């Protein structure tokens, strides 16, 4: 199982959002850190196939990012996503299940399971427009897991979650990372410290640091701030 990102770039008119990033990701949890505007979300969107890179290639087990087979193994939670207000929570999951290629039978099995996993089993029959921000976030996490993705991309997944839910989520990600590639981006450094096996740092569209992060090593936040004081350099 390998996600191969080869010299991927994304350029807008006079701005390079992602600058020749190359990565090879295997099973495990990867934490992506960077300042606002560093290019994390742009990189994640290219990995999810919803933005086309201006240069480079992305492939999962030799399946190119533009294929249906690639999208079949992908689960994505965007930073800022919406919903259809007239849909109930479980309607939304059934809809996403259909989009992800699950049969009705599989969906009927998966949806209640996931609602229970994210503590929404009592709210599945309520309309999403009545959900709080945290409940919507949990629904988003549930939809990302519908198709048992081998590649899970999470952009600010714990935003809006209370501390108890955040801990539950960390444990869940830790479990999931044992058998798939999980790439998560967050500003909450403690999340990365506790869950990520590997830390990736981005600055100005470039990967400036990549490496294993042991729990109990130096404070990640101090290390992160120190990296950003130095001149950014591309490192693999």
């Amino acid at each position, binding site marked *: 199982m390998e996600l191969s990102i080869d010299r991927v770039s994304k350029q807008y008119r006079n701005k390079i959002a992602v600058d020749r990033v190359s990565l090879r990701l295997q099973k495990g949890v990867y934490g992506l850190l960077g300042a606002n505007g560093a290019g994390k979300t742009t990189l994640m969107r290219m990995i999810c196939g919803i933005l086309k890179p201006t240069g480079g290639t992305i492939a999962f087990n030799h399946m190119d990012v533009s294929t249906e087979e690639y999208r079949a193994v992908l689960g994505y939670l965007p930073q800022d996503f919406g919903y259809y207000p007239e849909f109930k929570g479980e309607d939304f999951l059934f809809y996403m299940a259909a989009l992800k290629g699950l049969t009705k039978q599989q969906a009927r099995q998966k949806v209640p399971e996931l609602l229970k996993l994210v503590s929404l089993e009592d709210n599945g029959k309520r309309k999403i*427009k009545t*959900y*709080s*921000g945290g409940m919507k976030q949990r629904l988003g996490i549930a939809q990302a897991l519908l198709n048992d993705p081998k590649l899970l991309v999470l952009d600010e997944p714990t935003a809006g979650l209370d501390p108890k839910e955040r801990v539950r989520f960390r444990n869940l990600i830790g479990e999931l990372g044992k058998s798939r590639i999980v790439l998560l981006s967050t500003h909450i450094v403690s999340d990365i410290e506790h869950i990520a096996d590997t830390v990736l740092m981005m600055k100005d569209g470039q990967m400036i640091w990549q490496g294993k992060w042991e729990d109990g090593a130096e404070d990640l936040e101090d290390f992160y701030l120190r990296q950003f004081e130095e001149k950014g350099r591309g490192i693999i």
Partner: protein
Amino acid sequence: MNRKMKEALREAFEASAPAHRQDFFENIPQERVSLISFMLSQAGYIRKRVLVISLFPVLLSLAGACVLDFDMLWAISAFMPFLALSAVTENFRSAAYGMEELEMSARFSLKSVVLARMGILGALHLVLLCLLMPLACVHSIFTVTQTGVYLMISYLLADVTGLWILRNLRGKEGLYACMGAAVCISSLYSLLRVRLIRLLYRSGFAWAVVLLVILLILCVSETKKMVRQTEELRWSLS
């Protein structure tokens, strides 16, 4: 004291650092912004396209009256719903773009902003109506008064419908629904103009006046409800 002396003194002496600067600023009496100047400042925030849309029926009626020799009353009546739409949606910009919360918590709250916009656009459209009335009836069988009543009915029908929709539908869905309503009302006028002319010409003016009065009452009522709604958030969910 001449300029050279002033410059020499400036170079010779170093001004001392200000003391109690912050206290001084905090104690300066704040100039109160008057309601009129607030309203005028809001005028600058009204989108230019609203003003452009407002000019269109005037140009249309001028063309009809002076150049085309064509009865423009029904064409202008068909356009009036879009004029009303531009005013109503301008008042609801804050809700459509999620600015309600910020504006409600400001000194000149959302209520003042909305009232200011309504006042400015209402005055503008009233002036427009006074311009349109004599122009639209040039080649028409109706009098100036009748023309004014028929134009106002078209405008108020869209206005009342738009206000009701925006009070009940959140966000951009409401704007979209208002557009749909304006299109329907406008098309009705276009489709039914022959029957309307027949109906109104015979004995319908009295009924038209009754309808106008009803629409005016509804308009005032909807406006009051809308203004009350700007005082607090309807929902406390994101």
